């Protein structure tokens, strides 16, 4: 024992000197750090952009909206007649043709934002820095929701003029000043923003990338199909309240008895988002990591 203590006194001094030169030596004049909501937000912002998957997925989402919109429009324009599903489309509908694909990219990235931290172990660092936990969920949702909202809005507003140009002179022609067009384009951005938050919440709720994605895809793609198993009288009543249908009424040009109004659609989707967030918050606060 005695000998061992003697031997490491030399290298020990080296460590000591290194630390002492640091302006942040512990006992004297320690800087005063503090966790604030804004700082957690700043941290989540930087975490989002320092992963390659964010850039790839957001790029894909944006590309889906623009490319599929343009392809659909040129298909419509060259088809010209009532030969396919696109025949009764409008410029707005064609512009948002890629939204169905973009919502998957965005929703899955949302799941990764939270569940990815559990699968990698990053969550332990995150919650050690912010042990109150809930600010992390709010920040992740706000940051990624806002980013997805921006991506969706940019995608919609970039695609619409191109599509309008392609279909001008046809029955699908619409301009930005036409009734419901501006609302539809903004609604599309808002829809992607809320889907992003739902994905983020599902990831935090299930703490598993596979589980979160499965539920997300199920809710967005499979459950709407399942409602056809319900009795006819119920089907319309139930299906219009599903997240995907409620979202659709936010960006669709026309509405009927089987759909919600744009405002009601937004409120219903906000309700689903709040529900998912509440579940995520409960699990985050109550269960061990």
């Amino acid at each position, binding site marked *: *024992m*005695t*000998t*061992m203590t003697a031997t*490491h006194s030399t*290298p*020990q001094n*080296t*460590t*000591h000197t*290194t*630390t002492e030169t*640091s*302006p*942040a*030596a*512990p*006992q004297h004049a*320690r*800087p*005063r*750090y*503090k*966790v*604030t909501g804004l*700082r*957690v937000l*700043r*941290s989540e912002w*930087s*975490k989002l952009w*320092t*992963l*390659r*998957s964010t850039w790839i997925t957001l790029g894909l989402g944006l590309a889906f909206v623009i490319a599929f919109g343009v392809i659909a429009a040129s298909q419509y324009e060259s088809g010209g007649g009532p030969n396919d599903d696109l025949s009764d489309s409008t410029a707005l509908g064609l512009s948002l043709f890629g939204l169905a694909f973009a919502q998957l990219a965005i929703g899955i990235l949302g799941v990764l934002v939270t569940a*990815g*931290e559990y699968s*990698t*172990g*990053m*969550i*332990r*660092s995150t*919650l*050690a*820095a*912010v*042990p*109150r*936990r809930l600010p992390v969920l709010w920040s992740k949702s706000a940051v990624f929701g806002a980013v997805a909202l921006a991506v969706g809005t940019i995608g919609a507003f970039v695609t619409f003029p191109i599509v309008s140009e392609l279909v001008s002179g046809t029955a699908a022609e619409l301009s930005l000043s036409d009734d419901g067009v501006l609302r539809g384009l903004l609604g599309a951005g808002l829809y992607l923003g809320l889907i992003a938050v739902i994905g983020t919440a599902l990831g935090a709720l299930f703490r598993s990338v596979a589980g979160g994605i499965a539920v997300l895809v199920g809710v967005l793609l499979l459950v709407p199909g399942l409602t056809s198993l319900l009795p006819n009288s119920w089907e319309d009543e139930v299906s219009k309240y599903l997240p995907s249908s409620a979202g659709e009424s936010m960006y669709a040009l026309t509405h009927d008895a089987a759909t919600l109004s744009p405002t009601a659609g937004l409120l219903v989707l906000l309700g689903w988002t709040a529900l998912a967030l509440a579940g995520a918050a409960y699990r985050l606060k109550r269960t*061990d*990591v």
Partner: protein
Amino acid sequence: MIEAQQLTKRYGEKTAVDRLDFVVKPGTVTGFLGPNGAGKSTTMRMIVGLDAPSSGSVKVNGKRYDRHSAPLQEIGALLEAKSIHPGRSAFDHLMAQAHTHGIPRRRVEEVIELTGLQAVAKKRAGAFSLGMGQRLGIAGALLGDPATVMLDEPVNGLDPDGVLWIRNLLTGLAQEGRTVFVSSHLMSEMALVADHLIIVGRGRLLADTTVQDLVRKHGGDAVTVASGQPARLREILSGPGVEISGEIGSEHLHVSGLSARAIGLKAAEYGIPLFELGSRTVSLEQAFMELTHDAVEYHGATITDTLGSAA
């Protein structure tokens, strides 16, 4: 300063941590020792609020960890399992942690330098070797310039260079007046760095003691000495409070109650050449084995028994 009071964690039927009471004091290295599965990691996770205690409490610098306004400044922790996203670079990882507390970029660069990660700081952390990953974890623990540093099995899987580096780091941190709390399942490792020991087995506190006390209690500080004249050496070394044992015909003597230094000087005085002179640190290992013998989860029965009877 870490204070645990009746700290308990149950998973269903199994009690991982069982009414632990201990205090980790500043300015020393406190070793948290116990066989695998003794509840060390769970205890550490409860200290930083990752796991909630089933009952009891643990406080860091007088408050529950999550009640602090700058947690990373109170306690910096390296947990056993990896706590990074492999796709993020070391620098970005630390910077994201720093943002939560308003820790400046300068401090991030400082801890990168302190842990020798400059060359790889911009590389994806997922590509790091075990040792590099461990250094990154320690950089994260030191980021907030914390009053308390807590490391769970920091030397696991490290090469000798890395082990030495950690040892020096720990003693250096304690000298700066910080509380250092470090876990290990290896007594030999702890003996080199820790002043104070908290020994647990099956979630229960087995001993809260100092290294010296533990050694004294379990057979004392023994020194092994080999010479060509064991009988003569035995004669000149014997005195009050000195115990000497050795087999007939063997060059080796086991001496307790005298330091290696005293034995060497005595031998030189009488002109007896020594072939070997060493402190038997292994006795610490044996003390640990005795303490934890009943608390080891899985026995390699024969091995443990042999070592036990050798003591």
